[in-house]
C-alpha cells in the first residue's frame, strides 16, 4: 500500500509535467500543423534560464522564475518567426526535420553556455515529506501537481475568455474561416509557440526542482511527449492532460513493480505508443480525421 501510494504520487507528479509539455505540443500542432521535435529542448531552455536568473544573477526566486518564463516565451516566438515561418506549406518531413535541427542547435547553445555537467538547482519547492495514506510522499511532488493544475486552470480561462485565446480556438477550428474573419493567423502561431515555450519552461522548472539539479537529461522528457500526445489524441487538450497522467502513472508503476534491472520505465511508454498507433491512431480524444491507407 505504501509503495502504491508513493508510486501513484510520483506518477501523477511526473504525469502532470508530461501533460504540461504535451499541452504546448498539442497547441502548436492544432494551430499550425507542426510536429515539434524540439519540445524537450524548450524544457531545457526554461530550466537553464531559471538557473541563470535565480542562481547566477541572483534575482529573488519568484521574480527570477517569472523573468525566466517570459524569456522562454520570447525564445518561442523567435523560433516561430525565424525558423518555422519560412517553411509554411512545405511537406511534413521538412517541418519535422527543421524542428529536429532546431533541437540540435538549441542543445548545442545550452551546452556551450552552461556545459554538460549537472549543476545543483535552486530549491523552490519545500523538501520535506507529508504522510498520505500511511506513505511518506515528498511535498515537492504535491506542489508540482498543484502548480500544473493551476497552470491548466489559467490556460482554460485564457482560451475561454481572452481575445487571443478565442482567436486561437478559431484558427484551430478552421484556418480559412478564421483568416476571412480578420484573425491574424501568424500572430496566433506566435502566441501558440509562446505558450508552448511557457508551459515547457514551467515543466522544466518543476523537473529541475524534483531532480534537484539541471542537466541535459531534462530534454529526454521531450521524447516522452509522443506517447502522451498519441495516447490522448494529437489535437486534443484534455487528451494531453489525461494522456500525460496515464503515461506518468504507467511509467511509475512499470518502473516500481517490474524488476528494476529491466528498466521497463523507459520503454513502456513506447510500447504503449506502438499499440495505440496500431489500434487507435487518433488516440483517446482526437478527431478521427486520420487518412487511412
Amino acid at each position: 500500500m505504501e509503495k502504491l501510494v508513493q508510486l501513484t504520487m510520483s506518477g501523477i507528479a511526473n504525469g502532470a509535467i508530461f501533460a504540461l509539455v504535451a499541452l504546448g505540443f498539442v497547441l502548436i500542432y492544432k494551430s499550425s500543423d507542426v510536429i515539434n521535435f524540439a519540445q524537450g529542448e524548450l524544457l531545457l531552455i526554461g530550466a537553464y534560464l531559471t538557473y541563470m536568473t535565480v542562481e547566477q544573477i541572483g534575482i529573488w526566486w519568484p521574480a527570477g522564475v517569472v523573468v525566466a518564463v517570459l524569456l522562454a516565451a520570447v525564445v518561442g516566438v523567435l523560433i516561430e518567426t525565424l525558423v518555422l515561418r519560412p517553411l509554411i506549406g512545405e511537406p511534413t518531413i521538412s517541418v519535422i526535420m527543421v524542428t529536429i535541427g532546431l533541437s540540435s542547435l538549441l542543445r548545442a547553445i545550452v551546452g556551450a553556455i552552461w556545459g554538460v555537467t549537472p549543476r545543483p538547482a535552486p530549491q523552490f519547492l519545500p523538501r520535506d515529506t507529508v504522510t498520505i495514506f500511511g506513505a511518506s510522499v515528498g511535498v515537492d511532488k504535491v506542489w508540482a501537481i498543484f502548480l500544473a493544475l493551476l497552470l491548466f486552470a489559467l490556460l482554460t480561462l485564457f482560451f475561454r475568455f481572452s481575445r487571443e485565446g478565442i482567436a486561437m480556438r478559431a484558427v484551430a477550428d478552421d484556418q480559412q474561416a478564421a483568416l476571412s474573419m480578420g484573425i491574424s493567423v501568424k500572430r496566433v502561431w506566435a502566441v501558440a509557440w509562446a505558450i508552448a515555450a511557457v508551459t515547457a519552461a514551467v515543466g522544466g522548472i518543476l523537473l529541475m526542482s524534483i531532480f534537484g539539479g539541471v542537466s541535459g537529461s531534462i530534454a529526454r522528457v521531450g521524447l516522452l511527449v509522443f506517447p502522451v500526445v498519441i495516447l490522448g489524441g494529437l489535437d486534443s487538450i484534455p487528451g494531453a492532460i489525461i494522456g500525460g497522467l496515464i503515461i506518468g502513472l504507467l511509467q511509475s508503476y512499470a518502473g516500481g513493480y517490474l524488476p528494476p534491472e529491466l528498466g521497463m520505465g523507459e520503454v513502456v511508454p513506447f510500447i504503449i505508443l506502438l499499440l495505440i498507433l496500431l489500434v487507435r491512431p487518433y488516440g483517446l480524444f482526437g478527431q478521427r480525421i486520420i487518412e487511412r491507407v
Partner: protein
Amino acid sequence: MQSGTFHTTYAADMALRPYWPQRLRIALVLVAVLVFPWFADRYWLNLANTIAIAAIGAIGLNILVGYTGQISIGQGGFMAVGAFSAGLMAARLGMPMWLTVPIASLFTAFVGAFFGLPSLRLKGLYLAIATLAAQEIITWVLTHGKLLGIGESLSIPRETSNLFGIPMTAIGNPDFAFYWVTVGCLIVTVIFVSNLFRSRAGRAFVAIRDQDIAAQVIGVDLFRYKLLAFATSSFFAGLAGALTAHYRGIISWERFTIDTSILYLAMIIIGGLGSVSGSIYGAAFITLLPALLSNLARLLSGVVPQINSYLPYMQQGAFGLAIILFLIFEPEGIVKMWRNVKDYFRLWPFSY
C-alpha cells in the same frame, strides 16, 4: 555540350547515363576512387570509409523516405540490428565477414519489414512516430542486452574480418584494406539502387510516394510494395551496420541511438531526397562537417585557446544549423545546387 534530349533509339532513351559528360564524370570519379587510397594517409582513409558506410546507410534510408515517401526515424535501430547480428555471428560463432555481412543484412531486412507493418495503417507523421517507437524499443533491447548475451559493448575478433579466407592484414593496414570493402559495397549499392528505380518495384515505390491512393487504383499492391520498401531500405541499413561492426571491431548501443537516425535523416535532407548521388553528397557533408570543424579548431587553438572545449557544441550546433539553413534556402539539397551549377554552364551564355 549537350543542350537537349535528342535520342533516336529506345536503347539510348533507356540508358542510365546517356550523355558523354555524365560518362566522363563517372569515369573521372572512378579513377579518383581507385587512385585515392594509394596516396591518402590513415586519417583520410578512415574518413573515406566512414563516408562510404554512411553513404550506404543514407541510400538505404533514401529508398524509404525519399523514393517511397515513408518517413522513418528508426534508421539507427535498423543499423544496430545489422551491426549486432553480424557482430554476434562473428564473435560467438567465429563466422567470417563475407558470410556475416550478407546474412546480417538479410536479417535486418526482415526486422525492417516487421517494423514496417504499421505503415499499412499509418502514414506521414504517425508513421514517423511509430518508427521512433521502434527505435526506442530496439535501443532498449540492446541496453538490456543480457537477454542476448551482450554486455556494454561487443568486440568482434579481428581474424573474422577476412575475405574468402584472405585475412585483411594481407592487403595492408585495416583502413586501407577496408577501403576496398566499403567502397566496393557502396559501388554495388549505387548500381543496384540506381537500377531499382527503373524496375517495376522502384516505379511502384515512386508511385506510392506521389499519391498512394492513385497508385492503388492503377494496380500497385500497397501492402506488398510498402513492406518491400521497408525491407530493401533496412537491407542497406543492415549492410551499413554490419560493415561498421567489422570495421570498428567494437560496437556498443551508443553508436545507434536516435541521434544516429537523425544524422541519417539529415544526410538525405541535405544531400537531396529521392536521389542516389544526393545521399552520397549528404553522407560526405555530414561526415566531413565535424572533421572540418575540429581541424578548424586546431588551427585556431593558438589564437583562441578555449575553442577546444567548445568544439562538441560547435559541431552539434553546426549540424542543427546546416539542417535548418538547407531546409529554408535549398530544400532540395546539395544535388539541386550541383544541378544549378551544371545548368549554368550548359546554358551559358544564354541563361534563360
